């Protein structure tokens, strides 16, 4: 019976098999293999030498590794916070605009489809220490030059600016879809109750956008932890990935440098696992902060309140 059902479904199994076969070879096997590699010292060519947990022990005591985590976190905060706030402002303005909507959407989205390499080259020239547009501007208004691409903070600000510029429009479009999904009745009810626009925003818009905010927060976190290209291309120097003092070196840059420049495959694999742990950890934190039980209650309370008001209004309308 069961055999018969499986035989009948053979075409369906064949249809889904390409993904699973490719995943087995290029996904599952490498993941398992990377555990094995991380227990070895290996240059990728010579014999593998078993070192047990030595790579991980070295990892947690490696100041460079902790520096790259710090760099990644700072760049992530410097980019994600302004990015999501600006996206919310733009989405709100887009939601209220009735004209030029298609133009706005496309103009805001173009940065996201443009290659990071090209974008980084342009921003590299804007932030350039000596000939940069930004410094020319600062000089013209009487302020001094800033050595953006030498100072630790300047480097991080430059990288965060690139990330923000590329992703604000994307997140604004997502927020806009969320805003459009909120029923007009709820706003109507708030208006009748005499809620100010600030109250409406914080008490209705934000709670009801919660699932969308969670989506953007999770994707920005995962993306933020994987920043690489910006810090690799910004300094135009293959031997100096993170810039002066490695101030722009991210976790993935360090993985790349360890494995593919220094040929320390075992250590590279161990950094990969550390990255995986961080991503899982931060996804859980996001989930708890934005999607957690407390907020669930707040939102459902807000929704119940709104529904009650709509009902009341309908009743008053009926009486009239």
């Amino acid at each position, binding site marked *: 019976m069961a055999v018969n059902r499986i035989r*009948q479904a053979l*075409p*369906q199994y064949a*249809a*889904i098999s*390409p*993904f*699973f076969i*490719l*995943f087995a*070879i*290029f*996904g599952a*096997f*490498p*993941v398992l*293999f990377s555990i094995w*590699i991380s227990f070895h010292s290996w240059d990728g060519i010579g014999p593998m030498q078993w070192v047990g947990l030595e790579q991980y022990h070295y990892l947690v005591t490696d100041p460079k590794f902790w520096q790259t985590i710090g760099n990644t976190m700072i760049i992530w905060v410097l980019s994600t916070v302004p990015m999501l706030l*600006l996206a919310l402002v*733009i989405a709100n*303005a*887009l939601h*209220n605009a009735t*004209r*030029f909507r*298609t133009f*706005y959407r496309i103009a805001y989205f*173009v*940065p996201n*489809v*443009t*290659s*990071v*390499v*090209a974008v980084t*080259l*342009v921003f590299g*020239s804007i932030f350039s220490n000596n*000939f940069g547009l930004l410094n020319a501007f600062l*000089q013209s208004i009487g302020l001094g030059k800033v050595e953006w691409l030498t100072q630790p903070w300047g480097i991080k600000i430059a990288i965060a600016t690139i990330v923000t*510029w590329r992703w*604000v*429009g994307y997140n604004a*479009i997502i927020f*806009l*879809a969320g805003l459009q*999904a909120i029923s007009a009745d709820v706003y109507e009810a708030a208006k009748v109750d005499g809620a100010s626009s600030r109250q409406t925003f914080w008490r209705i818009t934000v709670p009801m956008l919660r699932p969308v905010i969670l989506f953007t927060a999770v994707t920005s976190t*995962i993306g933020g*932890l994987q920043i*690489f290209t910006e810090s*690799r*291309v910004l300094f135009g120097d293959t031997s100096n990935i993170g810039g002066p003092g490695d101030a722009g070196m991210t976790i*993935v840059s360090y*993985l*790349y440098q360890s*494995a*593919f420049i220094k040929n320390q495959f075992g250590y590279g694999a161990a950094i990969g*696992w550390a*990255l995986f742990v961080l*991503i899982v950890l931060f996804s859980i934190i996001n989930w708890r902060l934005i999607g957690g039980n407390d907020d669930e209650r707040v939102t459902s309370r807000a929704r119940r309140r709104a529904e009650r008001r709509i009902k009341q209004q309908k009743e008053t309308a009926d009486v009239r």
Partner: protein
Amino acid sequence: MSVERIRTITGHVVLMLGVAVSLFPFYWMVVMASNTTPDIFAYPPKLVIGSHLFENMGKVLDNVDFFGSMLLTLVAALSVTVLVLFFDSLAAFAFAKYEFPGRNVLFGLLLATFMIPAQLSLVPQFVTLAQFGWIGSLKALIIPGAANAFGIFWMRQYAKGAIPDELISAAKVDGAGFFRQYLTVGLPVLRPGLAFLGIFTFINVWNDYLWPLIVMTDPNRLTLQVALDQLNGIYGTDYSMVMAGALMSVIPLIGVFLIGARSFIADLAAGAMKF
């Protein structure tokens, strides 16, 4: 003027400022690509489009095999896109419209693969491809990405709502097998969903940097992004030439995007809402 009107105008002013910030780097890229490097380095810098664009583009072509890289990138991006569209829509069609033993478990497994960051398996993937002898070959760019979980998930959501069960039953009555049902019933209905996934895949492969940087080790066979980075690494002080290269690498892609931009953006937003 009414409060409403002032609010509308303020909204447009805010949006226009945003658009200016969003588009300025493109303008600046054109300014740099069309002026000479000394002009860009002057203070105050030249802020208007110059007349040296073709000269700068010519210098790019003299220094790197730009069209070779572009062709290589185009072949890789088109191949991956065609394979992804076929494999993902076929799998999505089976997942969305047919009952078979283990379907939910297999789909759950597919979703679980989302959790794995690409960088986790960077080292072993490289080692595996080296064993296959694929390093430096187009196969390394095309085959590992020929089917993906995101596309199957995406197309399944789309197929569930878009394909009526009656059409499949009718095709079965006519004696059509599974693959025939996919071709005659599934594909025509899935076309708008495929348009999104196609543009999305093409853009991603075209712009990918880390993976081709690692696997395309032959300096004569670099993808456009890696070649552009190399141009910058070697001739970094010649801003106008590097920017001409950047401009040339960006134009085809923006062209592809603008063709389908309107529905692409709408589909992307709708997809995010389903998560």
